[in-house]
């Protein structure tokens, strides 16, 4: 066998090995959650609030955290959409390609993307103190939306950037304004990507513990007010794992299982929705 062919085979084997490694990681994580969590998972887990001890919950369930996470991540995602979409459209439709403003904004967003979520938590907390707000669902929503904004904007930006200039020109040449072009052509063409961006941001928001620890706090009752503390699944997992009681620790895995299933269910729903909306997309 000649040298180039050996080289080819070695690198191919390395690539396959890396792919297998990442896939087996995923499988192992899922397996660990399922194996350790499934025995503790029962109907009470998802229908009741914690009982038998302050939010550690030896008994009862984590409905407070499930609803808290959904409200918090859902609220943060909706808030973030209203900021992300205008930014992404502005960068791609209104600002000239390669302008300094656009590249600076993208750079700033990339930096923000890399900021650890605990920093968002601390930042959010500082702002809350300034406004005299206590740890609350609203505080958590604001902190998490700050956390997911750069992710959502850059993800939307990347898909909108891919839209060929010709398509925009076609719309302009018919006398459409930039706004009409953005809303009727760009958003339609990029819709699957925009939905994916929203999903990625939601996934990041629902799974983050550090940004909500000071801002949303924790509570063992179902969230009923924006201004009251709310529980979240990642924090529930964190507190459950932190207890010295093995049976509560096992429930942490059940909580993790619930969180994973939630994210999976939302992903699949978005995928199905996306397929329905992609009919008209120009390839």
């Amino acid at each position, binding site marked *: 066998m000649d040298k180039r062919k050996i080289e080819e085979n070695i690198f191919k084997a390395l690539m396959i090995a890396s792919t297998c490694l990442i896939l087996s990681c995923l499988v192992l994580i899922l397996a660990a959650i399922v194996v350790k969590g499934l025995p503790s998972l029962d109907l009470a887990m998802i229908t009741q609030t914690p009982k038998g001890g302050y939010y550690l919950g030896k008994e009862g369930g984590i409905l407070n955290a499930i609803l808290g996470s959904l409200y918090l991540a859902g609220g943060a995602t909706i808030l973030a959409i209203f900021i992300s979409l205008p930014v992404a459209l502005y960068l791609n439709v209104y600002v*000239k390609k390669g302008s300094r403003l656009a590249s600076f904004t993208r750079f700033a967003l990339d930096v923000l993307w890399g900021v650890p979520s605990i920093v968002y938590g601390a930042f959010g907390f500082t702002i809350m103190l300034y406004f005299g707000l206590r740890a609350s669902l609203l505080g958590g929503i604001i902190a998490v939306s700050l956390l997911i904004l750069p992710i959502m904007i850059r993800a939307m930006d990347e898909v909108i950037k891919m839209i060929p200039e010709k398509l925009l*020109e*076609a719309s*302009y*040449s018919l*006398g459409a304004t930039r706004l009409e072009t953005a809303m*009727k052509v760009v958003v*339609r063409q990029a819709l699957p990507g925009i939905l994916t961006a929203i999903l990625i941001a939601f996934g990041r928001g629902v799974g983050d513990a550090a940004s909500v620890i000071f801002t949303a706090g924790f509570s063992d009752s179902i969230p009923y007010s924006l201004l009251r503390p709310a529980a979240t699944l990642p924090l529930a997992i964190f507190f459950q794992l932190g207890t010295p009681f093995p049976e509560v620790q096992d429930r942490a895995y059940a909580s993790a299982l619930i969180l994973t299933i939630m994210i999976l269910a939302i992903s699949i729903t978005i995928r199905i929705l996306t397929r329905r909306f992609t009919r008209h*997309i120009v390839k």
Partner: protein
Amino acid sequence: MQSNTHISVQNLNVYYGKQHALKNITFDIPDKKIIVIIGPSGCGKTTLLKSFNRLIDSVDGVKVSGKVLVDGENIFDPKAEVTHIRKKMGLLSQNPSPLPMSIYDNVAYGPRIHGLKNKKELNSIVEHYLKESGLWEEVKDRLHTPASKISVGQQQRLCLARGLAVEPGIILADEPTSALDPKSSRRIEESFLKLKEKYTIIIVTHILRQAKRLADHVAFLYLGDLIEHGPAVDVFENPQEEMTKEYIKGVIS
């Protein structure tokens, strides 16, 4: 100004950064004729076309001086309304660019953004312009399928119908057949010959034979200079400039 002049280009200069893309272009485009702009790649043909509907505005670092009068109105006047100017011209680009919506909505896009809501009127507009571009018979039973699903040749005729539906006086076509097969190309050319009764048509092409088939008037551009222009017969049969002669003979390309 002569009554039969539709577009009058006066001392038009376009710079991309330091590059002088169009150099002091001055010529008149007569009404309801086919004007073919010929010249080698990179000579400024597309830039000239994009100047007419001010798509050139969105190019980074572009500078334009001079005047382009359309119906006697300078389109580069700071007070001129871009959407109003663009409404006067239908653009057909090199690759057909259907919008991400149905065949029907593509044609109705222009009229809708200009404020037409009446369903009946929209229906008749869509039918009328699809007939005018020769696509109606092929798509009348599937108007609500995505425009991306029809063939490339059909898409180009759809784009023509879409452009006509805003009732422009001018059709701008940038190498409109270069992505099409010979049969589709011929259909587009046939449409042009029919449409010139009602529209002024400006075509950019580097296919000389196509230019000869279609042109009433010809403008020859070379490296940003307008070398020669005039009635097609004169330019093709009896070119005055050495460069035009060479280009037509195929010496330079």
